[in-house]
């Protein structure tokens, strides 16, 4: 079995005040393992320790107990960081650089050849949908655009491990969908992704495994399918049935399972996100309406 890409054992973090007195116990004995090629979700309410965990994994914070290993080494190893991509929670990039310059700058930090930087910059700007703003200063970007450029800079080195802190925060539903599609694509290419989020729908859709944190402690850990599976109920989905057929099915169920069996019959609803994406996509594909819009 391949060694885990991310591993923590008994990880603890205590934040202290100016006088050295413990102020916050952000993490308490966290044990985690992320296998290669997995998309791993770190879930939890605000203040549960998600960002602290990520910052320890990136060497931005030092653990006060236990240890963390990333790609088999210490998170503070500089060389190791060449194999990691990171999207910070807050999109604070250099406001006086354009989108293109930002990517070029981060590419230079990775010591990528100039031609590679140019090619990757073009690809990533296209990927995150910032073609129209490639020469605009990052300081003029909206929150959603900042998340996009943040995501692009995290991918500039084609990382083995991608760590995303709240990747969909501030994105519109289309952007949200694009990020999820991107994550699926990365997974298909064998990349390991660690996502921290409190948006459960995002995690559920793309993650293989999740860990749920609360007050710095691990409360649940495992494959999404296994955690969400409800083995007490059965669901059958088919095309719309006539009332007669429904009655016949009910009668059959009463006969086989007993009269006290609770059966719910209804029309499944499309999820709002799915509906929104479908509507906007079809609107985009429609030919432009002639004439001016009437007031």
């Amino acid at each position, binding site marked *: 079995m391949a060694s885990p890409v991310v591993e923590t054992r008994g990880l603890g973090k205590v*934040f202290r005040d100016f006088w050295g007195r413990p102020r916050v116990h952000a993490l308490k004995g966290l044990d985690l393992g992320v296998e290669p090629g997995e998309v791993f979700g770190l879930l939890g309410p605000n203040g549960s320790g998600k*960002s602290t965990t990520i*910052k320890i994994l*990136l*060497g*931005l*914070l*030092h653990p006060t107990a236990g240890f963390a290993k990333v790609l088999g080494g210490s998170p*503070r190893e*500089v*060389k*190791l*960081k*060449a194999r*990691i991509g*990171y999207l*910070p929670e*807050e999109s*604070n*990039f*250099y*406001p*006086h*650089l354009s989108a293109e*310059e930002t990517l070029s*700058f*981060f590419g*230079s*930090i*990775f*010591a990528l050849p100039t031609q590679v930087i140019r090619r990757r910059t073009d690809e990533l700007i296209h990927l995150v949908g910032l073609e129209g703003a490639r020469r605009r*200063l990052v*300081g003029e970007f909206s929150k959603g655009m900042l998340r996009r450029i*943040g995501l692009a*800079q995290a991918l500039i080195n084609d990382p083995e491990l991608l760590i995303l802190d709240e990747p969909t925060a501030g994105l519109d539903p289309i952007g949200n969908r694009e990020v999820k599609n991107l994550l699926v694509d990365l997974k298909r290419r064998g990349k390991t992704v660690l996502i921290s989020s409190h948006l459960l729908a995002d995690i559920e859709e793309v993650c293989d495994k999740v860990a749920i944190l609360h007050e710095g402690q691990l409360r649940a850990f495992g494959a999404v399918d296994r955690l969400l599976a409800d083995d007490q109920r059965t669901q059958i989905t088919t095309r719309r049935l006539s009332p007669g057929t429904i009655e016949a099915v009910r009668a059959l169920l009463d006969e086989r399972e007993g009269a006290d069996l609770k059966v719910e019959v209804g029309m499944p609803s499309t999820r709002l996100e799915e509906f929104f994406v479908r509507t906007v996509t079809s609107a985009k594909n429609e030919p432009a309406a002639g004439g001016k819009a009437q007031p």
Partner: protein
Amino acid sequence: MRAVLAVARLLLAEMRGRRTWIPGVLIVAIAFFAPLFGERTGTGSLRERYHLCVTYGIGLPAFLINLLMITVAASMARDIENRRIQALVTKPIAPWQIVLGLFGCLLLVSGLLSMVIFTMFSARVAELRDPGGRVADPVQLSIRRLLVPRAQLGPEPKTIDPGLVAAMVESMRSESQGVHEVRRAELEKRALKVLRSLQLRPGEAADFVFRGLQETSAIERDGLLLRFVVHSLKPWEVGRVSLQWEAGEGSAEMQVRSNLVPHGVPAEVLLPGSVVGKDGTLRLRARNVEAADSGVTVILNPERVHALPPQGSFFASEVAALWLVVSRSALLLAVALFASSLFRFVTAVFLALFVYVSALASGFLRETFELFQGDSHLGGLSEQVAGWASRFGALALSFLPDLSRLDPLDRLALGRVIGPGELVVETAWIAAESAVLLALGGLTLRRRELGKP
């Protein structure tokens, strides 16, 4: 290396975006116009105009450049505060590379601005020239001279008998009692200074020999600047003393009376070049010309008597001064970067400015602290507090950079040479101090938790 260059380029782009070039242009404008305003108020002599050029054309702009660079360097603290640095430090770049990239970029900008200012200064000095050679001003003439090495001082240091020190301390104690209370340690220090030095009673004289003053037309035409420090045996009674310098032999002999020199403050006397012998030797006699009944004994420390030959080539002197000005900027940048690796923006700027000012005034502060540590006029609590504060201040000064060792602009203003030896020693000091500060900055950044909420 590419990462270091990328950080440097990033800072340049940030400076461009933040419009840092506006204060840069203002500084250049100040360097151009400030001496003009000064000229209106002065007497308009060549020497005065030259001094104005140095003070307002270089001194003031160099100070402003340093202030600007300190502020920009401390922006690293702001990047840490607003967590912008997180995206950078999670990339394969070591903290020392970040510090080095910022330092290199700022040093380049500071160097370029300084070069612009020095070029403007050269142009202005060229304007002051009198092509006909009719103006016999030493500063104007010194512009044309060749580089002359600094003179060597003749007298050897003395060995002191400890018994003599003790006897002198007792004598001073009994004499000063009732007039002014002085600590024993301070008296010992003063006794040692006195015994190492030459003591001249009224009418007495001491001889000095300087060798290695090469026979050059520069000395002959521009003269030789003598810089010295005198003390009196009883400073609690006398604040100023009269001293006369007799120089040269035979027909070249002359006398210069430097009347009423305040004790402990460097004094200067310009000797004519003709007093230097053909073999490059200068024989000097210092005579105490206090009234015989005054009983004032003048103390002259041979180690603090310097004969400064005139500046040689103006260009060489200017380049040396420019080199030192930029080196000082480098040191201040290192201070600012170290401070911003440790503190918040405002604290880092304040700390760097504090170090800058204290480094400029280091010599004066050291003397003042020594005075407060030794003397006690009233012996009250406030005196004691002042004494403790001075001890702390003296201790702090020993850790802070010292920019008072050699003032390049003072030399330039006086038209005196900055010797190659001095240049090397000063550069080595500054380089060592800057390297230590930059290494500490990198180390602090590496150890610091940059992801703290």
